[in-house]
């Protein structure tokens, strides 16, 4: 049994990484039609730099993901703190309310946002996309920060309070520093959720304005271009890099104590 485990895991990993590897390879291939033999060339990365639409969409995506990370981390940390340090009647209900944004299919969430935002005059656009992304990121932030909060009791905070710190001082000088790795992990997580989000952005993006995934989808539907390979390779490497950092700060389900 033990002998077939590693080869099997190898096959599973090969399946997971095969398409990603092929895509990255093709981004460096000169042929526009993905033809072999492979000839190394940076032509598609150069083409990318002069593609105004893709550059603008990338810029939008980075900005939205950054602002989303800031807002979601602050709001989510507050809520997680309330859940960890107070007992109150509505707590169970509030915690349950975090599930709909991540369990209802995005298609349904996205179309309902489109209807509501259009109807109320909030409209479509980058602001609407940001509104939606924060909603999707919040549950993750609450869970990640909550896990960190659960790992240390309120004793440190009580000690500080006994020594004369005001509640604000306790929060900023004790709670936040101890929570820092959890907060950073949550912020990176929120950034990734927003940066990778396609479905909701797709419904909330008006013609002419878009985020990177929406722009890529439009390009794929119109026909393949190797520039898309180049930008997709960059995206996938950036988001995997981000997640490696998060994993260092916060162990997901691994051998955590």
């Amino acid at each position, binding site marked *: 049994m033990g002998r077939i485990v590693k080869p099997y895991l190898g096959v599973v990993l090969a399946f*997971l990484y095969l398409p990603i590897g092929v895509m990255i390879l093709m981004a460096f291939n000169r042929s526009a039609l993905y033809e072999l033999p492979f000839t190394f060339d940076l032509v598609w990365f150069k083409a990318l730099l002069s593609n105004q639409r893709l550059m603008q969409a990338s810029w939008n995506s980075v900005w939205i993901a950054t602002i989303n990370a800031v807002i979601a981390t602050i709001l989510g940390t507050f809520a997680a703190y309330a859940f960890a340090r107070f007992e109150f009647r509505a707590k169970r209900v509030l915690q349950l309310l975090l599930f709909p944004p991540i369990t209802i299919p995005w298609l*349904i969430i996205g179309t309902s946002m489109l209807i509501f935002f259009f109807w109320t005059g909030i409209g479509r656009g980058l602001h609407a996309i940001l509104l939606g992304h924060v909603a999707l990121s919040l549950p993750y932030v609450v869970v990640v920060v909550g896990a960190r909060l659960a790992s240390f009791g309120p004793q440190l905070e009580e000690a500080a309070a006994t020594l004369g710190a005001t509640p604000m001082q306790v929060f900023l000088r004790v709670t936040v520093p101890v929570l820092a790795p959890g907060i950073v992990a949550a912020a990176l997580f929120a950034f990734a959720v927003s940066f990778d989000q*396609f479905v909701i952005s797709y419904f909330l993006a008006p013609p002419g304005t878009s985020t990177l995934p929406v722009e890529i989808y439009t390009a794929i539907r119109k026909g393949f271009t190797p520039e898309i390979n180049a930008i997709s390779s960059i995206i*996938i490497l950036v988001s995997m890099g981000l997640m490696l950092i998060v994993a260092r700060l916060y162990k997901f389900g691994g051998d955590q104590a």
Partner: protein
Amino acid sequence: MNAAQHRTIAIVGLTAPAYLWLALTVLLPLCAMLYFSFLTFSPMGGHESEFTLKHYASFFEKRIYWYNAWRSIELAMYVTTLCLVVGYPAALGLAKYVKGRWREAIFLLIILPFWSNALVRTFSWTMVLREPLNLLFTYPAIIIGLVHAYLPYAILTCYISLQAIDDALIEAARSLGATQAQAFRRVTLPLSMPGVLAAIFLIFVPVIGSFMEPRILGGKDAIMLGPIIEGQFNAAFNWPLGAALSFTMLTIVLLIILAASPLLRRQLART
């Protein structure tokens, strides 16, 4: 002001911003969509609209809707089953036969792609499935793309519950005369059921609602409920019908969860 009031202010102050945001972006939009699904026209641009049930009725009357809803459910069943068939052994191997740094490294490698862009990963399959495989724009292509997208979920949830099983339990079964297969069937498998059920739930629901993967990989085989709903919003502009179909999909999802919940509760009670 007394301590209890302070406490209430603190709780409300800490939770209100997040929940007002969620109300504005999730709760109210879902209510708005429910309202729209009962209207003849979108109540915008000066249209007079009236109450109607015709959008829901058409789901049952027109074959294109209920048949494609079934196709979505069928797809979700295929994808969920394949993810578990491939993912459970991987999780078992990782949890029980690989140790130390190898385990950590492989675990990380499995969940890494899962956190990268789903659209880009789907797109990357178009390069593998074209010639000479010639699978692009077929039904199997949709399944391959979706299994690729959700396999890490299955491995992750199964791994977490398998890893929590005390090896002493399995050793006890073995020392009492159980074969390796018996020990697995009577001890390991039942104890890992919460992870399996979590995987089913986490894969089934989003796959029913998928539209991007079928559209990119499926060609003419992409016609199922997700893409049809998307079409009502972005091509046909029949929002009330789209809303009604969305709610029907949500109801199907809820019914499936409800049907599974006694099973789920029994599992939770046992552990």
